[in-house]
């Protein structure tokens, strides 16, 4: 980080880094166009960007009726992020997928699960843990937890493909590009990059959409099954939902603190 700051200043020809990036965009533009002696480049957030200190998702399993509903979420996500569809089962890449309650919650599975849960599938994805073991394991900080909003992200540029994070993740939420994914993307979304072979990828809570004021792609097509919001804001929809309903999280005994909740 230190290095890029320096580089940035060099390029921008700026003399001071005070407030760099911290100012809201409007103020920044005003300063640049207004009465500044030495104009300098700066970065800012998009004015519409959604803000939170801890993003979380609530899955209301009571609203799940059919596999098609989850199918829709998977499709929206994978299309948005250029996730390939590989023929080889072993190499498949999954950001969000459908699985059974027994698989999502192996230690909570009993012989007498409610009839509803027994018959539906659940959407599973990266849990964006509060205390993510994958981030602890990564030797290059290619996967990291964003301090500002708690999203666990991947920097594909930096990943060396050691797959330590895959061993560390207790949810099987990470996939590896065992080969060049491009030929297996049916319809390329040209606004989002693809990946190259040899790097790990996973759900990113749609950071690229949050940054321009949109909700995650899966949430938009979820028929109200998925709710997304800030857990630190007691007024947010997710906080309200969790206040009124009993929800469980996957493998809480491991101390990872998942940000995806399931109302059962």
């Amino acid at each position: 980080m230190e290095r890029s700051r320096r580089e940035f200043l060099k390029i921008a020809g700026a003399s001071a880094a005070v407030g760099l990036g911290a100012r809201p965009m409007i103020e920044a533009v005003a300063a640049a166009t207004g009465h500044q002696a030495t104009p300098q480049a700066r970065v800012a957030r998009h004015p519409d960007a959604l803000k939170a200190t801890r993003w979380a998702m609530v899955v209301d399993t009571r609203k799940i009726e059919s596999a098609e509903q989850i199918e829709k979420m998977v499709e929206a996500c994978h299309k948005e992020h250029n996730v390939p569809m590989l023929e080889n089962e072993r190499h498949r890449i999954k950001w969000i997928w459908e699985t059974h309650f027994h698989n999502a919650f192996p230690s909570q599975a009993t012989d007498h699960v409610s009839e509803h849960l027994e018959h539906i599938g659940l959407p599973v994805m990266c849990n964006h843990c509060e205390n993510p073991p994958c981030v602890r394991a990564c030797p290059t900080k290619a996967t990291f937890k964003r301090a500002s909003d708690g999203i666990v992200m991947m920097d594909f540029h930096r990943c060396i493909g050691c797959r330590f994070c895959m061993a560390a993740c207790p949810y099987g939420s990470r996939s590896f590009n065992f080969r060049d994914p491009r030929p297996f993307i049916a319809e390329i979304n040209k606004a989002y990059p693809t990946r190259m072979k040899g790097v790990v990828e996973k759900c990113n809570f749609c950071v690229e959409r949050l940054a321009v004021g949109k909700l995650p792609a899966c949430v938009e097509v979820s028929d109200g099954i998925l709710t997304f919001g800030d857990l630190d804001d007691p007024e947010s929809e997710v906080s309200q939902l969790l206040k009124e309903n009993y929800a469980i999280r996957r493998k809480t005994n491991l101390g990872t603190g998942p940000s995806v909740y399931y109302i059962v």
Partner: protein
Amino acid sequence: MNDKGKIVTGLVIFAAVVTFPFWYNLGKAAPPPEVVLTEKAKAAGECVLPKEEIRTEHMKLLDVWRDTQVRDGQTVYINAKGKAYTMSLSNTCLDCHSNYKDFCDRCHAYASTDPYCWDCHIDNPKEGE
């Protein structure tokens, strides 16, 4: 030492091999590349940074954009003139310069560099081109 002959021959061969690229290419200087600007780039008239700067510093700028965008969650770059751009190789740079073969590659080939940006960033984001 009676190995003098061998040593000298060896040295001559070594020197010849090492300098081979120089005399092989002697007098065959490649012409400086000419890049093609798309209509959109021409219409825009100016780039994120002044022409000379972007030409020599674009890789550094992209490096900073990458880290700021991916790691800090800032998505907008405001240049010294106060103009705002989305920090995105795919959606900003390659939107104007949608002809990477006639634009990016020309100089890269000349400078004998082989960046792999396009392995992931779609080379031509414009529909129907």
